[in-house]
């Protein structure tokens, strides 16, 4: 079944949307919520005492967003640590400052990355990017699979947002800035 979905997504993406690595998607689905919880100010970002993990996508990537949501649910089964979470799927076009979100996960988009990054900054929430390239647009985290998993952190945006990560996180991430992305 996993193989069918993978082939399907590959096909769909080839036909209609961006091309996503399902393994990377799964890895990000697994790690990004945990990274979010490493923020010491996570409580400030709760929505009605819940964590709202918002996945922002292009209309063509809706299935990918669902895939991510399913992967998260499968992994976390309704709780990020001690917090109940909700996964909110929002298209780029619908994304605004009023969109409920404790953190946002941004899939690929040609035009809207900057907008999403700015909204995340304005809201003071953590932003995760599928693609590390998007970090230059102002998103905070991304993750790639190399020999091992490498977590990227946009150094330029670290202090512009209202986040305070455990210090050890900063020791394992790979910092990027506008110059070396």
């Amino acid at each position, binding site marked *: 079944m996993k193989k069918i979905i993978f082939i399907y997504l590959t096909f769909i993406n080839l036909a209609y949307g961006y091309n996503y690595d399902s393994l990377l998607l799964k890895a990000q689905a697994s790690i990004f919520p945990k990274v979010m919880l*490493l*923020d010491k100010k996570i409580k400030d970002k709760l929505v009605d005492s819940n964590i709202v993990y918002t996945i922002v996508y292009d209309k063509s990537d809706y299935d990918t967003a669902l895939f991510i949501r399913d992967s998260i649910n499968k992994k976390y089964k309704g709780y990020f640590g001690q917090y109940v979470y909700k996964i909110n799927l929002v298209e780029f076009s619908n994304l605004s400052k009023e969109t409920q979100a404790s953190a946002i996960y941004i899939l690929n988009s040609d035009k809207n990355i900057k907008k999403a990054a700015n909204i995340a900054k304005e809201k003071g929430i953590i932003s995760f990017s599928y693609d590390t390239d998007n970090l230059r647009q102002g998103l905070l985290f991304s993750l790639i699979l190399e*020999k*091992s998993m490498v977590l990227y952190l946009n150094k330029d945006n670290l202090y512009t947002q209202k986040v305070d990560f455990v210090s050890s996180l900063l020791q*394992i991430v790979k910092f990027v800035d506008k110059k070396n992305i």
Partner: protein
Amino acid sequence: MKNNKVKSLSSKIILSIVLVSLLIITTILTIFEKINKEAFYNIETEKVHIIAKTIEPLIALNIYLGLDDKINQLTTQLIKNPNILAVKVLIGNTVINEVKSKEYENNLEDSFIVKDTIFEPNSKKEMGFLILIYSSKNYQELLHKYTLFITALLIFLGVLFLVLGLYIKRLLSPLGEIATLLKNYSPDKEMEIPFIKSNNEIGLISGALTNMQESILKYSKQQQNINNYLEEEVSKKTAELVKQLYTNALTGLPNRLSLLNKIKNDDKGALLIINIDDFKEINDFYGHEVGDGILIEFSLRLQKMYNQNQNILLKHLSGDEFALFFIQKPSMEELMQIAKKLVNAVEKMIFFHENNEVSIRITIGGSYQIKGALEKADIALKSAKKKRKSYLIYDEKSNVEKLYKENMEWVRKLKKAMEQDKIVPYFQAIFDNQSNKIVSCECLIRLIDDEDNVIVPYKFLSIAKKSRLYSKLTKIMIEKSCRYFEHLDFDFSVNLSVEDILDLETVDYIKYNIKKYNVSNHIIFEILESEGIENYQEVSTFIDEMKTLGCRTAIDDFGSGYSNFEHLLKLNVDYIKIDGTLIKNLDTDKNAQVVVETIVEFARKLNIATIAEFVHSEAVLKKVKEFRVDRTQGFFLSEPQRQILLELHDKKTRQNSMDV
């Protein structure tokens, strides 16, 4: 002399410093070692803990994020540290990562194991454990370096103390040299004390010793002079004292001690003791100064008499006593001739004092035997005086010594008897010649000896007088007799001597006992007349005093002494006891009969009752009654008895029946 091994002061100082220092250093080092070892251990373990604490958050984050390969990277990186031998990461009891170095197996025993808890990032939830096995190589190296340092320090201190000790020993060595030198010090010889020029304490000591030596030398010389002077003075004084010891201070003649020495060291000589008769009277009359003058003059004349005779040594024994000691024993005749001549010569001597002529007489006692010569001559002298002879030589056959010994024995017996309460009254009845009834009894003294023999008074009474025990005996008799007759309605008589009457203490004692036992109406004092009553006034006073108390008196042994009828009148006595010597032969002695008749006649005229004692036979009793003597006492009628009452009762009964 006890050979004490000298213990070096410097060695003691050094030893003390070394011991104390070693003790302090050892203590400090032991404490330091313990502290440092612990500190080194803590440093090493702290290092491991720091490593663990440093790496733990990263491992925790990687576990949290599930980045297992990152964990492995971290542990692999850790193991590159040559001191970390192995790293283990456990979640629960499951080892999720373990890395070991090559040295791990070899160094397992010499390692620290630090276990650190891994907590979930951003919470205190326990996730697992990080175990670091750390090599103790550094720790061992530190210890090794520390031990080397301590050893070096100890060696250095040892050498330092050794050098210090040697230096102190060297500094103090002059003291030893000075002490060795001073061992042979003598005040007689001067010695040069070394190190006097040293500019330190040793120099000061040497200087002080030199000064002290000079002072001692000076003092020693002075002391020597004083000693010589004192020795001379002591010799002179000793000679003087020896001379004084053997010389009479007044006449300068050899004294009694000199004579005793002579007698002791001689076995052939003879002795005459010369005593000036009544010299006390000369002293009392002319004074001691004149007496001394006469003694000096007398000694000079004696010296003059005998200084040509080498065989005779003149001695001055005491005040009025001189002696002639014969070195070679003369014949008895010669000795007596010398004594006689001397007596005659002295009788012709006249001593002058302020136009008065003073004559003296001497008595000489001599001993022909040298053994006990002084005592024997003394006895002979006393005997001569007693016999009123001008000289007497001790007669070995006279047994005077034995008599003296017996007298002393009697004194001892008397004292013992008094102590043991063995002086007791015996009672002899006195009968009325008209009624033939017992009218009174005389209390007679008796001594009970150790064998319970009853001793009559003539054996000890004269000795008691000489030894001043007489008044004590009188007191005993007074007390016991009064006590005996306290509750008897009967007359009794006790004997008193004139000596007793003259003794106020005895008189007071008599009065006290008369009152105490209430016997004044029964007691009759028999005053002895045998030695002659000279102090009539005192006796008369006593008799009057006793009469006022209700007592009666009798003159005892009347007719034996120089009875003075005129005085007798004044004495106002109640009874006259005619002397036994007149009574005992009354039946045959015509003279006695005349005397007794006269006495009885005289007494009757004065209304004085007469008592005849020593009545020992019926013939005498018959004569006594014939001469109208009022009362009779004697063995013929009754002997003295210990218990008078039964005797009295019996006699009374017997007499009553006879009368009937």
